[in-house]
């Protein structure tokens, strides 16, 4: 009786808490949902295909074995390094196999047929991504190690795309027919997101410093920026059309600078307006958090206001300011898709074209790169924030 109860406790403790839902998701993704969908052309609704239908007996069998192994390793109390190795390999297998599904399902000589990842694939990808992130968290990697990992993941993705393994998937067929457009809109997307961020940092950090030094402008400025933040993004893009059209028409030379009611200019202005609050408020909060004694000591020992700001306050506030930059960058990469609505370009162009044509693959061609860019920006800047905290020695003297 006693040993039975102990055994029950032990076996319950032996199961990994996060591993159970991961394994559940793998089971759902592999068993219940279609792994891929097949359609005769890019507009009609796809028909579901299971793993075996999509990959054949051998490929499907191997994939299932791999997924089962991953689910088992996730459920059992295994070492973080093993979990990482298994989750990385399983993700790699999944990525390769979806490409093979494209090749396997596409009938020869039929150029119009489309094979897309099905809901099962996405559920599996989500489960494995969860598994992978959890393993990485358990390994407690240093910021530099995380950056290396990110670089490796980006390289692996590039190799996969470059090898042609995915060429029979619908999203790459959409890409093939508009490659130059893809890269042009991609560049535009980056310019919109980074340009508005750059403007926000160049103007927002000095504004934050000014707020910190004179409380009189602090409340009105932060209230104003807060108000802008509450305007729905589509509305703000629209609201800017009239004033910028007026500027373009009445200020000499404005048109030559590319300013007009629609296009990149209002998009950049709107993204900039949204970026300002996180940058300014994080600068204010960061500077407020600098130990008063340290600032008093700096003045008392003969630092000028400028030396005090550059040598003491700015480095100590840097982690918080960088956290604001991270918020803005991730937010802007996402928001920049809406710029397409007012002719501003960016990956949103494909999203809105796809919505217009009810072509899901085209929507994905715009959405997936956006998501990946946001992800890379988030991981990269998180590492930067942590590095700057280390330099500033996390703990502050009371």
């Amino acid at each position: 009786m006693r040993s039975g109860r102990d055994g029950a406790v032990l076996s319950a403790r032996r199961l990994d808490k996060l591993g159970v839902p991961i394994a559940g998701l793998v089971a759902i993704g592999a068993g219940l949902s279609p792994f891929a969908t097949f359609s005769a052309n890019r507009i009609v609704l796809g028909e579901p295909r299971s793993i075996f239908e999509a990959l054949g007996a051998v490929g499907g069998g191997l994939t299932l074995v791999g997924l089962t192994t991953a689910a088992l390793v996730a459920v059992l109390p295994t070492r973080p390094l093993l979990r990482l190795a298994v989750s990385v390999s399983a993700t790699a297998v999944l990525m390769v196999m979806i490409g093979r599904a494209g090749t396997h399902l596409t009938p020869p000589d039929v150029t119009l047929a489309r094979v897309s990842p099905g809901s099962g694939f996405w559920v599996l990808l989500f489960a494995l991504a969860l598994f992978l992130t959890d393993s990485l968290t358990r390994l407690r990697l240093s910021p530099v190690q995380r950056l290396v990992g990110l670089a490796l993941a980006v390289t692996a993705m590039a190799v996969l795309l470059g090898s042609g393994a995915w060429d029979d998937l619908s999203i790459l067929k959409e890409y093939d027919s508009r490659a130059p457009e893809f890269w042009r809109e991609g560049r535009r997307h980056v310019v919109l997101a980074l340009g508005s961020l750059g403007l926000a940092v160049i103007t927002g950090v000095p504004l934050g410093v000014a707020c910190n030094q004179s409380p009189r402008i602090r409340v009105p400025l932060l209230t104003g920026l807060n108000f802008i933040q509450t305007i729905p993004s589509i509305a703000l893009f629209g609201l800017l059309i009239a004033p910028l059209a007026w500027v373009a028409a009445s200020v000499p030379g404005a048109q030559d600078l590319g300013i007009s009611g629609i296009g990149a200019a209002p998009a950049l202005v709107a993204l900039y307006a949204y970026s300002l609050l996180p940058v300014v408020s994080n600068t204010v909060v960061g500077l407020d958090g600098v130990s008063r004694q340290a600032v008093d000591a700096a003045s008392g020992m003969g630092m000028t206001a400028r030396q005090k700001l550059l040598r003491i306050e700015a480095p100590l506030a840097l982690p918080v300011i960088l956290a604001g930059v991270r918020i803005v960058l991730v937010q802007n990469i996402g928001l920049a898709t809406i710029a397409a609505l007012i002719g501003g370009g960016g990956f949103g162009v494909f999203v809105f074209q796809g919505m217009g044509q009810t072509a899901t693959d085209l929507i994905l061609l715009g959405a997936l790169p956006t998501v990946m860019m946001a992800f890379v920006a988030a991981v990269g800047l998180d590492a930067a924030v942590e590095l700057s905290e280390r330099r500033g020695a996390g703990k502050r003297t009371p």
Partner: protein
Amino acid sequence: MIEIDAVTKVYGEATVVDAVTATVPSGSVAAIVGTSGSGKSTLLRMINRLVDPTSGAVRIDGRDTREEPPHVLRRRIGYVIQGNGLFPHRTVAQNIATVPVLLDWDKRRIAARVDELLELFQLDPAEFRGRMPHELSGGQQQRVGVARGLAAGPNILLMDEPFGALDPIIRAKAQDDLAAIQKRLGTTIVLVTHDMEEAIGLGDAIGVMDEGRLLQFAPPEEIIARPASPFVERLVGAADRPFRLLSLARCGDLAGPSAASGPAIDADTSARDALADLLWSARDAAPVARDGVIVGSVTREALEAKAAGPR
């Protein structure tokens, strides 16, 4: 020499410092005591112009402090504050080197000066140079704070509650160390504290402040024996007066020729601690030793006479 000449500071309606005049001779320690809000910190901050007086003047060695830009003035004056105010993102060596770097000393001179100061404050340079402030104990942080204040060899050191964040045992040690270093370097110190015992222990002169006014500025003996107002008397603590007087005297100075038995008391021990020793060991007299040699003895009678106030 610091001359504070009818200095007043008014913030809006409130007069924080009210026509204070005092002179701190070179090489002496002035302790400013008062309750919080008495204006003692503001008075201190007017010496290095962290606060500019509404009226009146401060002269250092005869020169009005307004003759040079404040940041230049401050680099000549050491500054140590409560909770030490070390820069958390800089190493111990970088913290200590703050003013020398501002003064553009060359690198070798700065490194040598940092090591010299660390040794002066009993911190092994090789071990502590590269540490971050949060890796130090409270007492070590405080020592680095004072070392930083002294880095460029200032004639004057301003200290605002420098021992406020330390526990009593470390505080007593830090006070003794400061007294020894002050004696060795001959620095003029103005120290703000709310602790009368600390003021009596360290000050050659004590200034008592209340509501912005300097009520009395005099040597400790006089503050204890002849308080200028009931407030000063209260701050000294009427019941503690005899013991405070005793704490100012060394037992070696009270030693007489008579013989005594039992363990000897060191000549540098304060008369207060000597009396405590006699009371505890139930003796009427004890031998006094200087450097291990008996030089006489101290009696309860002599100690009690020293504790008596003016008649």
